[in-house]
């Protein structure tokens, strides 16, 4: 690992994003627009209080998953990855460079989304709103690392997009947004215990509902962190210097 190459890669990825203002606008504003829409749809009911916090975790995860898997797929297919692998580029430098770049974007995205949800939409948060931001950023990193890993199994952009319903939707369905997880059939509950998104949704719901849940929240977050770390390791195994 080498700090200079990691930072150079982060700067490079951020510069690429900077040349694409439309993507920046979508990244930063769409989550807030959807949260605003949700609060409007459910105005006068208590649904938004339940679903709102979970949404703050879903957007960074899904968006960063898509963006990372498509950008790294382009690197694999466009030959730039092959070129980097013939240079003194560490596999960890490459992956951490990406994670850092999208992590930084996620911080801005989370600040806007949480601020909008709390101050504009009036989402009541019993715990510390900064914890919401933290969980959102960890979720973004989870999406980034899963995207880095999954891009190795796709040959085209079409295939990458198909990984969304395959890998992301089940986690949302089983994550405890629609029905609390302890009311699911046993088999599904056990499966959902093993899905990272269940733990981040639990963390967000705990922050929102309970002012004294900080240690529980951090416990759930640690599990999400371990998943992200596992995806980093898996992703670096898929970065081959030699191919057939």
């Amino acid at each position, binding site marked *: 690992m080498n700090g*200079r*190459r990691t930072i*150079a*890669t982060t*700067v*490079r990825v951020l*510069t*690429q994003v900077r*040349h*694409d203002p439309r993507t920046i606008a979508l990244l930063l504003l769409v989550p807030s627009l959807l949260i605003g829409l949700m609060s409007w749809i459910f105005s006068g009911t208590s649904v938004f209080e339940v679903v709102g916090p979970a949404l703050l975790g879903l957007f960074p995860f899904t968006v960063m998953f898509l963006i990372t898997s498509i950008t790294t797929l382009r690197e694999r297919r*466009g*030959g*730039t990855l*092959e*070129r*980097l*692998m*013939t*240079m*003194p*580029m560490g596999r960890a430098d490459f992956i951490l460079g990406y994670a850092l770049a999208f992590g930084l974007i996620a911080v801005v995205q989370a600040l806007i989304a949480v601020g909008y949800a709390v101050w504009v939409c009036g989402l009541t948060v019993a715990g510390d709103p900064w914890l919401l931001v933290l969980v959102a950023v960890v979720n973004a990193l989870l999406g980034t690392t899963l995207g880095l890993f999954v891009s190795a199994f796709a040959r085209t952009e079409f295939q990458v997009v198909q990984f969304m319903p395959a890998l992301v939707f089940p986690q949302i369905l089983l994550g405890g947004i629609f029905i609390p997880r302890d009311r699911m059939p046993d088999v599904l509950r056990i499966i959902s215990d093993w899905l990272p998104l269940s733990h981040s949704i639990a963390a967000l719901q705990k922050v929102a509902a309970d002012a004294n849940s900080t240690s529980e929240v951090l416990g759930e977050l640690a599990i999400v962190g371990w998943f992200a770390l596992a995806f980093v390791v898996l992703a670096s195994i898929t970065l081959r*210097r*030699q*191919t*057939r």
Partner: protein
Amino acid sequence: MTSSDAAIETTTLRVRRGGVEVLHGVELRVPPGQLVGLLGPSGSGKSTLMRAIVGAQRIDGGEVRVLGERAGSPALRRRVGYVTQAPSVYDDLTVAQNLAYFARILGAPRSDVARVLDEVDLAPLAGRLVSRLSGGQLTRVSLGIALLGSPRLLVLDEPTVGLDPVLRRDLWRLFARLAASGVSLLVSSHVMDEARRCDRIVLLYQGSVLADLTPEELLRSTGTTDADDAFLALVAGAGR
């Protein structure tokens, strides 16, 4: 360094791709400080051979030694410049940003970016997004990246495709200058006329080396005056 001080030495190199053997025991030697042209019809295995030399291709037999090391060993990653056949650059960065990024990965001095921009004649376009370049300009960005960090060996896969005659001549002059300064070069090409500018020519045909000689020897041995005719004569001889 090993017994031989060749820049590239492959012995009985065999490579399979997609279940089919595409290199059948290739013996290639590139002496140091020479400009060697790698010629051969489409599909003969030029790109595969070059990928094996830079360590990007898994090999199935034989040996590839580069600058005294096993191909692909970490020590070579700073000393070998490689241009892939399809330009591999970031099209959502400017020309200068592409060069600056790869320079930082290589740990090359900052001044290298300006030097390389000059060498590939792209200084006026330094601030232009790569997605807004012409095909030939794109090829030159890709070539420029390989020149960063002043590598001792350059492996260039069809670096002059799509360039006009003036640019082609300029680049071949640059290659000759580099060779004169001690850099070894392996350059693949379809254009037989470019072979005349090389110190040696290696002809690859259906995954084997058909000939390894100087441009004069090529013309003399085939009794032709034109590089294209010489090539056709050799291939016709191999077919029989």
